[in-house]
């Protein structure tokens, strides 16, 4: 019989279609249930409006379905517990850093805070993934995907992205 670890190993080879990181390292795999020749996987959407969700579900069905001894794969998206950047692995954080995408370390305020000042630019200690400087500016909460915001590093003068702290 196929082991659960074998299924997780397969999931580790499935990247997020929009980022160079496996779905396991992204922290969206909540449960893997194995019974006889069937597998059920519960995934957590990073954002409800993430356009990559159907592609991820298809890839999971295909790759896990190709495993010898597995005939049936089902995938559900669930909202409880809610996904957060805290669920990402060290491997995932380092994979994203190589592509210039920063990940919140939980030490500074997130996008979830309430807006009370006239200037809402967030300047507190967001580290540039290219040069490590903390002299960075928050450009926009709306980046190329729903889970990433856009920033600019004043030190190395490079734009970079960051996983939204949720």
């Amino acid at each position, binding site marked *: 019989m196929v082991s659960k670890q074998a299924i997780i190993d397969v999931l580790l080879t499935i990247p997020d279609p929009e980022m160079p990181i496996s779905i396991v390292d992204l922290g969206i795999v909540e449960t893997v249930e194995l019974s006889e020749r069937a597998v059920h996987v519960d995934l957590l959407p990073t954002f*409800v*409006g993430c*356009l990559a969700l159907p592609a991820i579900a298809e890839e999971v069905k295909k790759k896990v379905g190709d495993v010898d001894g597995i005939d049936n794969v089902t995938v559900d998206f669930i909202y*409880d517990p809610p996904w957060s950047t805290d669920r990402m692995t060290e491997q995932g954080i380092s994979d994203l850093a190589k592509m210039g995408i920063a990940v919140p370390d939980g030490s500074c305020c997130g*996008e979830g805070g*309430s807006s009370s000042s*006239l200037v809402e630019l967030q300047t507190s200690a967001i580290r540039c993934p290219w040069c490590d400087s903390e002299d960075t500016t928050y450009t*926009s909460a709306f980046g190329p995907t*729903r889970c990433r915001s856009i920033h600019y590093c004043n030190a190395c003068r490079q734009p970079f992205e960051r996983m*939204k702290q949720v």
Partner: protein
Amino acid sequence: MSTIDEATQQAVINLCLSIADDKLFLGHRNSNWTGIAPILEADIAFSSLAQDDIAHASALYELAGNLMDETADNIAFGRKPDAYLCSNIVTKDDQFDWANAIARQFYCSNFDLLRFERLSNSSWSELAALCKRLVVEQQIQVNHINDWVKQLATGTPESKERITNALNEYADAASSMFETPYGFDLLIEQDVVNVTEDIFDAWQARIAEQLSLVDISVDFENTASENEGGRSGVHSDDFADSLTELQAVYKEDPAASW
């Protein structure tokens, strides 16, 4: 909500549809700004807001669809006009005036955040779980739109005048959001909706707090007006125009797969 009788089930469906319809039409209206918003960042942001709103609608249609034995797409695009339960404000034509679009989104985003907060501890666990997730995303919307109101209010004399006018222009329509769908009282009885404070008062307080930062005051009245009726399927001409556009592709071939 362990056992569910027929009347409660219909009330739950109405609740999901009323929120989802608001978000679908708002997202649809806002998607018209894609490509023509005043600056690039605003264009991307408004398109993202529209994407979020339509995704939130889709998730709520799916929840309702489980009870209705119907797909989210069919619910979103296949109903008769009087089966839509959205409020009047979301379909009001913004005349492609940026101040109108910002004022409307400011009112709606803040209201949606309150709704999701309130439903996060619903006795219907599936709805509660979804709304916990949506609160986080909605807060990002609220932060963004609150900033835009402040930007316009502290920009030039013209921008201040135009956002002030738009906020007043949409104040009446905003009362339409607070209409409740049929069966709402039943949901309060069963703790599907937890009411700890009046949602109109709570909303007005948040709006006033933001506007006080930029010396704008708007009078709201939560009274029945020509703007009401949406939650029971009675809609305006602007709604009819929006619905025709929204359903155009679906009606070409309802059985098509995407």
